């Protein structure tokens, strides 16, 4: 009984395997992967647009829950998407193995003889002068010149067999197996790489280490926090170049890279022109204003340094930039909400504020409890424990006094620049694989397999030559080729070979 159950299990496994191996299954899996990706483009993805996902939870919580349960906010990382493409790869492998074996066998083998040439789809015959051996020799040379693989077919001394177009199968195998290499490259690169985002103010520096990113970087499974490279990037200055129309033309960060105390290089990082150092790439990804703000109490410096400001209107630059300074050491605690107009005149006119022209800093001071024990956002104040206290504004180089001996000053306006930082050691493999896909695709689609046979038998003084042919693809084009071969065969016999 036991063997019986085992057998049926084995049989059903085999039938699953057979199904997977079929071309039809590969086709269906391809379509499933395509369909699954559609879902990922219509439902907002957490990785691409976290704000839209958050908005979804806010506006339609129930639907969002359902989506989440189905993995629709992260389609490309979901179990079912993974399942679909893993199955596709298994199906691919199950086709590839026997096909590769078959290809090797057929490449080793000599072309098979054919006895009955008259029965072939393409057939021609002619009587030519000379002996059969000469006719066969001429045919061999002719076929060779046309890039056919020729052989005296086994045990047939009256004929030759020739074939061409194994590039089709080779290309197809190359194209399909390159997908495995592609996957290896993707997984390797993700596993041993990371991506992060960092903001650096002009004059400031960033040391490439886990703790120094704006938010903890996304590190691959095999990349640990202490594997970061530790070099330092100092931002000398940042510049947005504009066209006369006011559209930005270029974003440029001039940086200096240091290893320890040594400057190893200086570079400009722009859009489309990242900096690569020690396997890590830095891409220009954002910018903004960072005014230097100093707050003193009775002459003692409480806070001083550049403060990173953000804007809601980074596309058109017509809105005020927002920033926050928190003063936890003052009793009661004080928080400042700041608004920066880089170019107040442009602001009043409703024009974009592209450059700093007598910038102006407005502030609202709040007093109470900053609630610093709760999770913090550096761009907003948690106002639940605060009450509005004072308001005011200062131009660059000016200072404002608040009650209680507080003094705010705005000595300088700088810019900050943002970089996307990434390491992906698999890129080279992925690129190579993609090029192999392409390299395989072209012969797989455009070459065709065809075979020719020739037989020569004595007939009177001369030789009776028979030519037969078959094409597996592009049959119409083969007809022309076949006719040409037939014509040449007869011509070289009569006139001699072209020199």
């Amino acid at each position, binding site marked *: 009984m036991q063997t019986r159950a085992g057998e049926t299990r084995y049989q059903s496994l085999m039938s699953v395997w057979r199904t997977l191996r079929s071309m039809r299954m590969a*086709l269906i899996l*391809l379509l499933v992967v*395509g369909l699954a*990706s559609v879902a990922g483009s219509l439902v907002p993805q957490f990785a*691409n647009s976290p704000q839209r996902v958050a908005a979804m939870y806010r506006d339609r919580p129930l639907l969002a829950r359902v989506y989440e349960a189905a993995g629709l906010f992260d389609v490309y990382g979901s179990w079912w998407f993974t399942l679909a493409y893993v199955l596709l790869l298994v199906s691919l492998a199950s086709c590839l193995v026997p096909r590769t074996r078959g290809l090797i066998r057929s490449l080793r083998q000599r072309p098979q003889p054919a006895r009955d040439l008259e029965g072939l789809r393409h057939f021609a015959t002619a009587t030519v002068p000379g002996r059969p051996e000469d006719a066969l020799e001429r045919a061999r040379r002719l076929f060779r010149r046309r890039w056919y693989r020729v052989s005296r077919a086994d045990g047939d001394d009256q004929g030759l067999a020739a074939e061409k177009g194994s590039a089709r199968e080779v290309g197809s195998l190359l194209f399909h197996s390159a997908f495995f290499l592609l996957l290896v490259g993707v997984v390797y690169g993700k596993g041993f790489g990371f991506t992060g985002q960092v903001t650096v103010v002009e004059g400031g520096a960033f040391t490439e280490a886990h703790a120094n990113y704006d938010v903890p970087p996304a590190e691959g499974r095999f990349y640990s926090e202490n594997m970061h490279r530790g070099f330092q990037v100092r931002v000398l200055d940042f510049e947005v170049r504009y066209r006369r129309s006011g*559209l930005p033309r270029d974003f440029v960060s001039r940086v200096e890279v240091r290893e320890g105390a040594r400057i190893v290089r200086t570079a400009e990082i722009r859009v*489309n022109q990242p900096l690569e150092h020690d396997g890590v790439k830095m891409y220009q990804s954002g910018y903004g204003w960072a005014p230097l703000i100093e707050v003193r109490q009775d002459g003692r410096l409480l806070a001083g340094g550049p403060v990173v400001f953000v804007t809601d209107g980074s596309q058109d630059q017509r809105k005020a930039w927002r920033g926050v300074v928190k003063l936890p050491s003052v009793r009661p605690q004080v928080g400042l909400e700041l608004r920066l107009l880089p170019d107040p005149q442009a602001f009043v006119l409703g024009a974009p504020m592209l450059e700093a022209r007598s910038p102006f800093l407005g502030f609202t001071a709040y007093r109470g409890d900053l609630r610093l024990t709760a999770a913090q956002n550096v761009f907003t104040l948690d106002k639940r424990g605060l009450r509005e206290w004072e308001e005011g504004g200062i131009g660059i180089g000016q200072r404002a006094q608040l009650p209680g001996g507080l003094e705010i000053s705005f000595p300088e306006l700088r810019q900050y620049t943002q970089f996307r*930082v990434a390491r992906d050691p698999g890129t080279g493999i992925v690129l190579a694989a993609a090029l192999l896909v392409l390299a395989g695709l*072209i012969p797989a689609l455009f070459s065709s397999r065809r075979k020719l046979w020739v037989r020569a038998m004595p007939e009177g003084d001369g030789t009776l030559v028979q030519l037969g042919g078959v094409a597996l693809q592009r049959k119409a084009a083969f007809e022309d080729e076949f006719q040409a071969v037939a014509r040449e065969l007869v011509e070289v016999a009569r006139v001699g070979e072209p020199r």
Partner: protein
Amino acid sequence: MNLTRVSNFAFGLALLLYVVAMAAYFHHLAFRRSRVRIAAVALTYAGVLAHLASVITRGFAAGRVPWGNMYEYSSIVGLLVVAGYLVVERVSKVRSLGGFALGAAVLAMAGATMVYVTPGPLVPALNSYWIRIHVVAAMTGSSLFILGFVFTLLYLVRDRKERREAARAVAEPAPALAAVGGGGLPHDLAASPDEPEPRPDPEPRPGWLPAAAVLDRLAYRTIAFGFPIWTFAVIAGAIWAEQAWGRYWGWDPKEVWSFITWVVFAAYLHARATVGWRGRRAAVIAVVGFAALAFNLYAVNLVIPGLHSYAK
């Protein structure tokens, strides 16, 4: 001289010439007057020249390559559809389908006018030599897929007709077969190696499309030609994305839909080699592939937010 106005004028002229040529092609399809055909071809070439002039002056007006936004992109796709058709006509000797190809080009150009913008510089993200490589490949691949789609639709129409005729031929014996225009029977294309393949009939009888088998092969050839080009466009896009955005693939909507388009046409090519999927089913997959392509160009640029949206 105002280059923008020259460009727009040439665009309108090209559109007009195409429409007239399209009418001439249809006339020829219906009545097979060879003079009308010659006129149609001449008008088409004239249209291509005007169109080319429009594209080139546009490039000078903007001071950059003339494919930096949707208007320009659609315009060139229209041009390439027409140019591609002229090549197909030369290579395949099938000469009666110009009206349909021109119709597709006219639609692409009409779409272009709806997203017209005055020529201007590119945003910095697009300022890279990859715009030449990636976008040229994407435009070429797209136009070939569009042509392939046109042939596929015609195949579906013709195939349906042939099936009906064949069914009738079975019902009432013999002579009915003679009524089939291009002389083709319903074909299973890649059937046995020894089955004779119909050669394209250059001049089917008036009012008839070429045989379904001919149309099917035309569609296949065009799509197969476009496929590696599209593959290359996606690869070039990935290389560019790696350089501009710091990752070669991020499932941005444009990337997703190019991938879907790629997968669907890959499925089409596979279906052609799969028993039971050849012919109509494969044709339906090609239609779906075209839908994905069109969605990628219009819906993704205009509706779905993503990194590519600025390419409007």
